[in-house]
């Protein structure tokens, strides 16, 4: 039954990182997360909606986020996700990794 801890995509645009970042601002339910990412990226980033739920499960399994049942702004029962302390640490790690990577890419692209 053993399966290794869920691996994160280390590519830029990693969905996990985006979710964690979103949740570090405020607690949200699934659909809210998708909308937030879309809006804050000026509709540049379109989250493949179906893939969101496996990702949420993965993050929850790793103990980075926590889901509880609550109410949405328009009074619907929904599972609201919160970021945990471990999640914040992970976000820091991912952010560092990400900025290193984008920096490296920018250097390559700028080295003419």
């Amino acid at each position: 039954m053993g399966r290794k801890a869920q691996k994160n995509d280390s590519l830029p645009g990693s969905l996990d990182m985006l979710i964690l970042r979103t949740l570090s601002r405020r607690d949200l339910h699934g659909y809210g997360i998708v909308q937030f990412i879309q809006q804050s990226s000026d509709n540049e980033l379109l989250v493949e909606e179906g893939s969101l739920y496996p990702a949420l499960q993965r993050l929850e399994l790793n103990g980075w986020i926590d889901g509880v049942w609550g109410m949405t702004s328009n009074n619907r029962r929904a599972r609201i996700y919160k970021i945990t302390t471990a999640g914040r640490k992970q976000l820091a790690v991912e952010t560092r990794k990400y900025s290193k990577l984008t920096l490296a890419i920018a250097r390559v692209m700028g080295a003419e």
Partner: protein
Amino acid sequence: MTDMLRRLRYWIKSARRSEELREEMELHLTEKAAELQADGMTAECARAEARRRFGNVGLKQEESREIWITRFWSELGQDVRYGCRTMTANKAFSALAVLLLALGIGANTAIYSFMESILLRSLPVADPESLVVLNWHSRPPQKDGGQWVVHGLQGLFWPGDTGNLVSGIFPYPAFETLREENPVFSTLFGYFNGHNCNLAIRGQAMIAGTEYVTGEYFRGLAVSPAAGRLIDSEDDRAGAAPVAVISFATSQNRFGEPANAIGQPILVDNIPFTVIGVAPPEFFGVDPAEAPDLYLPLHTNLLVDGARAARLYSDGNFYWIEMMGRLRPGVSTAQAQAELAPRFHQWVATTATTDGERVKLPALILNPGAAGLGSLRRKYSKPLYVLLMMAGLILAITCANIANLLLARAAARRREMAVRLSLGAGRFRVVRQLLTESLMLASLGGTLGVLFAIWGVRALTFLLSNGRENFTLHAELNWNVLGVTAALSVVCGLFFGLAPAIQSTGSDVMPALKNGRGGGRRRRGQHVLVVAQIAISFLILVAAGLFVRTLDKLHSIPLGYTREHILLFTVNAHQAGHRDREMATFYENLRKRFESIPGVSGVTLSGSSIISAGMAGGAYRGPIKIGAVTIQGVGVMAAGPRFLTTMQIPILAGREIDDRDQPDSTPVAVISEQLARTYFGNENPVGRRITFVDDKRDLEIAGVSANLRYGSLKEGSPMTVFVAASQFSPDRVTYALRTAGDPLRYVKSVHEIVQEADPHIPVTNVVTQAAEIDRTISQEVTFAKLSTGFAVLALLIACVGLYGTVSYNVARQVGEIGIRMALGAQRGAVVWMVLRRVLLLAGVGLAISVPAALSASRLVKSFLFETQPNDPGSLALAGVVLLSAAILAGYAPARRASRIDPLAALRHE
């Protein structure tokens, strides 16, 4: 660890969690739809668009679940549940498949368990691998003038590989020579089978299997006593105090427990011995075919057998003692053989006196001794191989049939698979589900197979022992074997499940969705499987035919004497101390007392029963002289008064042996017709003389009997001489009582009379003549019964396969048949169209199988009696039975085809 706990918690609440997930996704879709609607879409469009953007909801749900629990297990659970549902939906199919597999697995496991216990099981002693059995082989003495260094023997020979004789008996001086300073054996020990002795314990007599063993025997086998001590070198010399070791079972039966037996006096053939020890419970000596009750030091046969035995110890040409050695650590069997063979050769050369003897000296060979002596192996291994082969064929048919059923079912479910594929199921997922179903069938079959195996082992023990009381071969269910067979069934399920599964999930789902009736490739696969089943069934049918015919031939052998209403039993007064004149009188008095039992119309006695005379040996072995002619190999039987009348053997001339023949009167003989014809032609032999050369005895021929099967049923010789028991005085006699009604009703009276005459004499081998005769052909009976059973089973399986295939084909061709009938085809023509294919399949199967049967049947040649392996009758019968069964199996679907309503069929199309 916390990770594991989280997973576990999830697993427990999995049903609720997946419900929650569904709700979450549902909410997502609703909100999305609401947003799209707000942008101006209609409600319906918005909903569809939301779904489209989301992707495959089911798949995403599965992926999400997979994050928590390995998907494998959750899907397995689903598959198993689904499998159970399909199995209950197709009860007939599932029951059939499971039953077939169980039968195949059970039969194979039972037979193989037997083989293992006979062929491979080691002796229950320490380090059995280092034991070797000493044998020798030699050219048979009949060649090159009949001179042989073996002048006398007491023991067994068996044929070796290259026409040589092989044996395990040696002269005692050979044992002494090999025992001296042996560099390859840590111990060399000898033994010989003393057969049945009269063992009297506290005045109660019983028959005990006896093994004479040298002083090194127990040390060499590394056995420790259950009580007391075992025989050692001090006990095994002429003049030592007579001591005995008894088996654990005997100590329990006779003394209550082993410790009570130590120091107790016992009588062995009326000679006093003292029990010094009890063998451990699991120990049965060195021959798995025997389980001695009594172990005596070798040299005590001087006491028990008297002067006869004394000569054995110094005679270098009398072969009687068997040997086993324990290799020193690090010495291989080959090294030991290289060391000992020249030594034995050197010794045996000194015992040869003529050139004729020197050209065929026995040569020593060492055989592995871990499994003990090979008598059982020689007797049963070949029959068991044949049975295993048949059971293996049954398993093959079973697998083919299940494959066929799975193929047919896969075809029937093609539509279902196509629907599932087009709804987005992964191809692997569908294949896996089909595999799970076949594996479930296989495991169910395997479980039931365990039951069949347990019954099978019991049934085989019963069949092989065939009523013998002291059958020592007790096979237990071998779990390793069962494991292998069960694994085989699982692999079979996997393999045969895989092919149709992959086929039915082929890339192009559209044709399947459109009409759901199968395609061409699968039909060919099915046909191959049906042909294979028919071919294999034919093989088994032929085997059954041959064995049944053999049994039939054996049953129709004219015995020449009666088999009904005769009770046989054996009494040995010699072992209880009776001797000479007194013994003869004792036997005669006993005979008269049996005559007084109400319902007994005649009593006679003889050296042995007629059928077992070949094994027991006659009253005289050796050349007989009639006039100037010397004859070998005539059966001589010591018979009491009115033997011929009691056995209903016609008297052709003169008289039979009767009360006139007393020890002091003229020795007389009654010869068989064949003997009389051969040596006296048309002259009357009555009053003429015959001579027993070795005994230097002249006998007067008193009468001529009709011919009879003397000795075994198969090789019985019609050359027979009856002599008077009163004049030849056998040590033990077999009484024959001619009774009214069931002979076994008189057993109690017989026991009472013998007990009254001498309580130290047990009555043994109590059996009816009919049972005694049947016992000698028990193997043939077993083979005929089992192979008939197998043949019926094979035929049944093959017919089911054929029926299934034909039905499937008919169902597939409904449209075609409908058109034909609409165009005016007669019902008969339709039936013929279907049956033609059945016959074609059967014909192809036969064409493959006949040559195979012809070559394979040679393997069973040695089990046949007056039946040729290529017996045309058996082949023809098997062919006819098979074809009729095939037609029968094909007729039902053919009839169904002819009843098709063209209109309905065409509308369906």
